[in-house]
């Protein structure tokens, strides 16, 4: 907001051209509702609204700088907001919205003559109005198709942020601008973007400070700091626009699979356990990845601080299993019955059971089949005999 200085300069030097301490001279014509230009566009200006706007103290020529007097050219030059708002204009030029329209500013800030401050609830860029303003393009299926962006507006509106902001009017809830910024919105593929993969923890952390600190204390955050960009960030689990409350069952049900994207073997062996069988039925109390490993401050077992460090297992398992002992926690939550080296007893048990099933069903399969064939022919013969006999 560098405009006051610029405005003062304009007021000091630009005014003499058209003597307009007030804008009455312009409004004498432009105050008429039915005033049109040659192309038929309305050129009416609501003087009262203009007076009440943030630019109300400015003369018309403050923005329409090429107009020196009356009569003025049929086609005055396009208004250049950057004359005063240089920094914001520069940011927009570098953003994804750079070439969206002739005057990008008005796309978000609304009618040129009635722009109000951002903290005025009437402003289209007031926090509570932002989703609707962005949604006028980003919720428009035709626009989405034309520019190839996902229909994020509907997703956001159903998310916890969308609910908090638009239903509860919670000003601290994240609007589009909270994550994407305002004037300098960059593509998520741009390393400078607030939504670039490795920048996401800091972006979310600007509100969610606790989870951010926990995340950076954990192995994923440490790896991210060390330059490993493959580690998961907030949005990998929580999504970007469809964030729901963490208690939501349907969301929890899909989360362990997310860990499995990288931790494939651990996920596959987890699926063999009672924990996984039960949670697949929608029972969220059963152990998911994070119940043992924690959600944000995940640490490897080799770290004594880890929930799965040998010394902490009794406490970790004891969260659910009252009476857990050192013997009890020798249970292997990621046992693999195909791995003889690591799990010999389990491997032999699986082999024995497979052989038992195979031999019993082979034997009785043959037994049943032969029995069926034999008695089928027998009974057909008996039936034929009975028919011919009677």
């Amino acid at each position: 907001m560098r405009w006051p200085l610029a405005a003062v300069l304009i007021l000091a030097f630009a005014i003499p051209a058209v003597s307009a301490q007030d804008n009455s001279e312009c409004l004498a014509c432009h105050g008429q509702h039915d005033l049109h230009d040659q192309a038929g566009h309305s050129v009416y200006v609501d003087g009262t609204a203009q007076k009440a706007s943030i630019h109300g103290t400015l003369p018309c020529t403050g923005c329409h700088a090429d107009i020196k007097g009356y009569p003025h050219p049929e086609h005055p030059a396009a208004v250049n907001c950057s004359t005063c708002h240089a920094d914001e204009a520069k940011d927009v030029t570098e953003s994804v919205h750079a070439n969206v329209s002739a005057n990008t500013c008005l796309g978000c800030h609304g009618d040129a003559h009635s722009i109000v401050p951002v903290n005025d609830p009437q402003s289209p860029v007031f926090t509570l109005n932002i989703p609707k303003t962005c949604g006028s393009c980003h919720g428009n299926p035709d626009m989405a198709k034309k520019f190839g962006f996902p229909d994020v507006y509907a997703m956001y509106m159903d998310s916890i942020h969308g609910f908090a902001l638009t239903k509860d009017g919670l000003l601290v809830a994240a609007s589009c601008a909270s994550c994407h910024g305002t004037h300098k919105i960059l593509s998520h593929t741009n390393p400078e973007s607030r939504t670039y993969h490795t920048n996401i923890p800091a972006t979310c952390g600007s509100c969610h400070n606790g989870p951010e600190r926990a995340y950076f204390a954990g192995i994923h955050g440490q790896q991210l700091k060390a330059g490993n960009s493959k580690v998961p960030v907030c949005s990998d689990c929580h999504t970007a626009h469809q964030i729901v409350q963490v208690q939501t069952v349907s969301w929890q049900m899909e989360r362990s699979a997310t860990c499995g994207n990288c931790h494939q073997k651990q996920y596959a062996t987890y699926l063999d356990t009672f924990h996984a069988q039960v949670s697949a039925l929608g029972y969220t109390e059963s152990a998911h990845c994070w119940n043992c490993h924690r959600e944000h401050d995940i640490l490897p077992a080799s770290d004594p601080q880890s929930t799965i460090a040998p010394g902490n297992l009794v406490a970790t398992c004891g969260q659910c299993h009252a009476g857990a002992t050192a013997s009890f926690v020798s249970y292997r939550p990621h046992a693999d019955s195909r791995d003889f080296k690591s799990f010999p007893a389990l491997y032999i048990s699986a082999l024995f059971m497979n052989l038992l099933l195979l031999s019993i069903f082979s034997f009785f399969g043959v037994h049943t089949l032969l029995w069926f064939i034999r008695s089928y022919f027998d009974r057909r013969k008996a039936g034929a005999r009975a028919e011919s006999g009677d």
Partner: protein
Amino acid sequence: MNENNSSNRYYRRFSLGQRYLHGVIMSTFVGLAFTGMVLRFSHTTWAPAVAHAVGGFAAILFFHKFCAVLLTVAFLTHVGYVVVYRGIIKRDKSVFWGPNSMIPQLKDLKDLFGQFRWFLWLGPRPKFDRFAYWEKFDYWGVFWGMAVIGFSGYSMWFAPFFARFFPGSWLNIALLIHGEEALLAAWFIFAVHFFNTHLRPGSFPMDLVIFTGRQTEKELKEKHPEEYQRLLEKGQLQAAQTNASPEWLTILGRLIGVVVISSGFVLLVLTLVAFFRRQ
């Protein structure tokens, strides 16, 4: 006329107590199989739907444990009655040996080979006594199943308690053998047992003897010729004779049979498809 007489004479095969015992084992087994298979194949589309329909996982596990306890009680009652009461207190040796005992005998082995010879048109059909070898196999299968499924199941139910006597890694093995043995039991009952006793030509569509307790003279002669001969020679045939099953009991037996056999068949197909898809 003679033929008519023969199928109008009825002989007792199962006592009321035995029929009740089978009823409890059958219904708890079907209950256990349905709730257990929902857990075993929880990754399928049907399992969560079934779980949801009966009130979610908590209801599934409650019903599973409820049936397990009932089945355990029925099983222990049977063992107590046969071994302790009849065998030890009443000193009834026929429980442990002879044609009325469930203990496998040399004749069972001979019958097994004889049956296979008959299957291949190599000999006459063996003359079975009161219990054929496959009936004894079904019977002892329950004992093996109770030992394996029961012990592993109770280990998981009371895991921290069992961990006082076994390492926690026993729980890994317990879940594995619990599930595999349950598949063995369910598939055996819903395929082999159902065929042997109900669906095979000669008994199709179902044999009601376990529900009514009675069989006709024709059935006795055909299915247990040795028993018939033995009773005839010892003059005990008259004592084994009974009246026809009341109509309501026949209808009830048929109803139970249709429900259990068809639900068993549904579960058999669902679990077979799920099992071979995942492998």
